[in-house]
């Protein structure tokens, strides 16, 4: 389309700017876009005499537009004699009474043929078939993308088809279908859940007792006692209150807005009819093409990284706020087995409110994920009284606020049931509760919420409280926002949950359970700059993986391209490197610098370390940097 021709053309009464050019083959393209923009990579040359434009009307425009949409699409042309040809539309000419040219056309029905189907003889498809307009009676096309949305999808789908998905293989274009397949539609019972939930209502509602039935039918005596598998529900005078509180919290949590598609669906937030996404987008756990992912993942892997650090080495004093953020997050995500000693200083713990918000939202969502995993999620009546760790949230206390009278409560994430004991054995400093069940939590709820409410909504600061007891390192943080009273602190709670949290949460879960056996009394690791370097011989290529290093947990937060960016003489990449183990080591110290940390696969080629004794600083800040003299192998 020549944009220069725009000026020459008349515009119709309704203000469309239209352009028209004609080719010899009669192809005409028309653009209905108001701004007159047409994407094209090839300019169409108007060949031959351009006829005076026919009286232009919107209806003619539409016709031309639609027939253009047909290009490349399989169509069926019915001739006036009754024959039918199928092929790919190459071009049409509306001027000439809808002449059409088909490529790879086949006659699918021959009007002149009279006879039984058996004898019909197949013919080769014609490469190009020109059908004069006079013959054409009708042109039928199915699934024509008429608007932009249809077009882009189509191309995507077609590209996918190159990869031969199952449906295209089995679609049996070539073979007659035995029967007409129609997609399954659910019954009218329930649009989303076909009545499954109705069947298995709670035991108090169920009219059917399986044990009774069994006994009756088969004479089997049951020794099932529900309370063997769970903790007794203590029905006390405060029951009603607790229940009410719990339901309120549950409702709040569930009613929150979320950006996560899956959460939204769970909560029944309707995405809208014309939500642009097929089943994969809606239901898959793979999230494609969302820019947020990268940053989210980094954060989460950071959590894991640091968590590993702290667990193995005890607490490492956080040297910067940014790192602290991660550190806290890591520990908070971990269960009470996390070994943070309480020697962290206050100033180090202070964070920007942004960081904390993010932290909150992440842990919140993460906790929520884990809450879902645990047997009792928000059916609070079940949860009440059971010492459940169904509320794995951390509360962070803002310190330094005079309005808070000191009740520093410790609640920790109890991800793993194993750690319950240690949790419970903790004695609260002031009024810490041992039980981390909802009930226990709620027992203090009045005080908690009241104290929480007193806090100004901005800038919660983190403090680590030393808790006595076996597990000495317990992170005591209170998140004012996330503890269910999300609505109280709108600022603090950013309810936007990160989709990337879910994959990490499973990792966290598994890892925390692994590490719960770590020695809580392990000494804190302090980096010794004067330590001799270890130079393995070249013949030992693979180190046994250290407990901490696990390839999948490493990440490079700020690395866009690996080494070259610094113009270092040696690429940092896979070159002479440290094992993952040591990498962990440097991490906290490097914190302020945020240097790119290359990704090491622990089982990858590991070259001998060529660390110079005399340059500990280099080692410290630029892990992977080698002085020029060392040999370079990449």
């Amino acid at each position, binding site marked *: *389309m020549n944009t220069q021709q725009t000026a020459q053309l008349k515009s119709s009464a309704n203000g*469309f700017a239209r352009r028209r050019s004609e080719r010899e083959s009669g192809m005409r*393209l028309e*653009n209905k*876009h*108001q701004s007159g923009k047409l*994407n*094209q*990579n*090839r300019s*169409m040359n108007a060949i031959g005499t351009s006829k005076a434009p*026919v009286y232009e*009307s*919107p*209806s003619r425009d*539409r*016709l031309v*537009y*639609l027939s*253009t949409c*047909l*290009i*490349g*699409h*399989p169509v069926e042309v019915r001739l*006036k004699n*009754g024959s039918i040809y199928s092929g*790919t539309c190459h071009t049409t000419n*509306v001027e000439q*009474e*809808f002449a059409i040219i088909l*490529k*790879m056309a086949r006659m699918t029905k021959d009007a002149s043929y009279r006879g039984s*189907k*058996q004898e*019909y*003889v*197949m013919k*080769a*498809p014609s490469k190009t078939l020109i059908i004069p307009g006079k013959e054409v*009676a*009708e042109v*039928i096309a*199915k*699934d*024509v993308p*008429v*608007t*932009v*949305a*249809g*077009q882009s*999808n*189509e*191309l995507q789908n077609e590209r996918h088809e190159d990869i031969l998905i199952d449906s295209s293989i089995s679609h*049996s*274009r*070539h*073979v*007659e279908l035995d029967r007409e397949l129609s997609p399954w539609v659910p019954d009218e019972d329930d649009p989303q859940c076909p009545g499954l939930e109705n069947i298995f209502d709670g035991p108090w509602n169920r009219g059917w007792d399986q044990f009774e039935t069994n006994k009756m039918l088969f004479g089997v005596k049951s020794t099932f006692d529900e309370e063997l598998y769970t903790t007794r529900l203590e029905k006390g005078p405060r029951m009603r209150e607790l229940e009410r509180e719990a339901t309120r919290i549950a409702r709040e949590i569930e009613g929150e807005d979320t950006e996560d598609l899956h959460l939204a669906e769970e909560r029944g937030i309707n995405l809208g009819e014309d939500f642009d996404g097929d089943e994969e987008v809606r239901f898959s756990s793979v999230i494609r093409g969302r820019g947020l992912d990268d940053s989210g993942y980094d954060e989460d892997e950071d959590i894991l990284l640091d968590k590993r650090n702290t667990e193995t080495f005890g607490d490492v004093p956080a040297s910067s706020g940014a790192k602290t953020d991660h550190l806290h997050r890591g520990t908070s995500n971990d269960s009470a087995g996390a070994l943070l000693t309480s020697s962290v200083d206050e100033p180090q713990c202070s964070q920007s409110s942004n960081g904390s918000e993010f932290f909150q939202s992440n842990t919140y969502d993460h906790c929520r994920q884990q809450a879902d995993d645990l047997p009792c999620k928000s059916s609070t009546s079940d949860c009440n009284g059971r010492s459940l760790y169904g509320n794995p949230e951390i509360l962070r206390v803002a310190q330094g606020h005079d309005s808070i009278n000191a009740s520093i409560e410790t609640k920790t994430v109890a991800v793993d049931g194993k750690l319950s004991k240690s949790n419970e054995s903790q004695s609260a400093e002031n009024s810490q509760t041992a039980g981390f069940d909802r009930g226990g939590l709620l027992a203090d709820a009045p005080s908690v919420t009241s104290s929480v409410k007193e806090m100004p909504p901005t800038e919660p600061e983190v403090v680590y409280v030393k808790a006595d007891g076996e597990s000495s390192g317990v992170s005591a943080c209170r998140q004012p926002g996330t503890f269910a009273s999300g609505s109280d602190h709108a600022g603090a709670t950013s309810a936007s949950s990160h989709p990337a949290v879910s994959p990490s949460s499973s990792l966290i879960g598994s890892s925390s359970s692994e590490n719960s056996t770590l020695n809580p009394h392990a000494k804190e690791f302090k980096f010794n700059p004067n330590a001799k370097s270890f130079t393995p011989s070249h013949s030992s290529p693979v180190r046994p993986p250290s407990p901490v290093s696990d390839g999948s947990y490493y990440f490079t937060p700020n690395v866009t391209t690996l080494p070259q960016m610094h113009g270092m003489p040696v690429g940092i990449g896979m070159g002479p490197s440290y094992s993952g183990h040591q990498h962990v080591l440097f991490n906290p110290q490097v914190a302020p610098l945020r240097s790119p940390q290359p990704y090491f696969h622990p089982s990858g080629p590991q070259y001998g370390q060529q660390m110079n004794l005399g340059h500990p600083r280099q080692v410290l800040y630029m892990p992977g940097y080698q002085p020029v003299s060392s040999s370079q192998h990449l």
Partner: protein
Amino acid sequence: MEGSISNSGSNEDFAVGCMLSIKTTLGDEFDGQVITFDRPSNILVLQEGSKPGPRRNIRFLKTNYIKEFSFLGQSEDPLDIKKCYIDLQSLQDREELALRQAEADAERIGVGVTTEAQGIFDALSKTLPVRWDKTSIVVMNEVRVSSPYLPENVIGGTPAANDRVKKVLELERRRLQTRP
């Protein structure tokens, strides 16, 4: 064959958006919604099906061939002008893709064979690699099945392959017979 409808029907009959039930002289009957009607060429463009998505079933019908039609109702314009763009490049790509596909398909069609033969070919191709050689089906490059494509006509190949093809052929034939 000219239809009996007079072409001097008023414009309102074919107003955009109206639902019509049409019988064509070719024996087609369908319901559709008018997208546009072009007077000079007498072409009526209809949209079939009610799903509102971006893809529609479209029919271009010359009004000469309308035997009869009835007005079902009036609805709004099915085409949203604002969303109507065409990307030429993507059209061309699509065409190329379709052509490639069609050529691949064309390989599978035997020239000068009966539909029955083609059906057998297609059925065999579901599980075995087959290709045409004039009017014989060549399976796994070894076994030939020539007209009239009965188990007796299976020739060649190792005994094992031969038997396998025979078996598949029998089954497919049986299946084809039971199907109407």
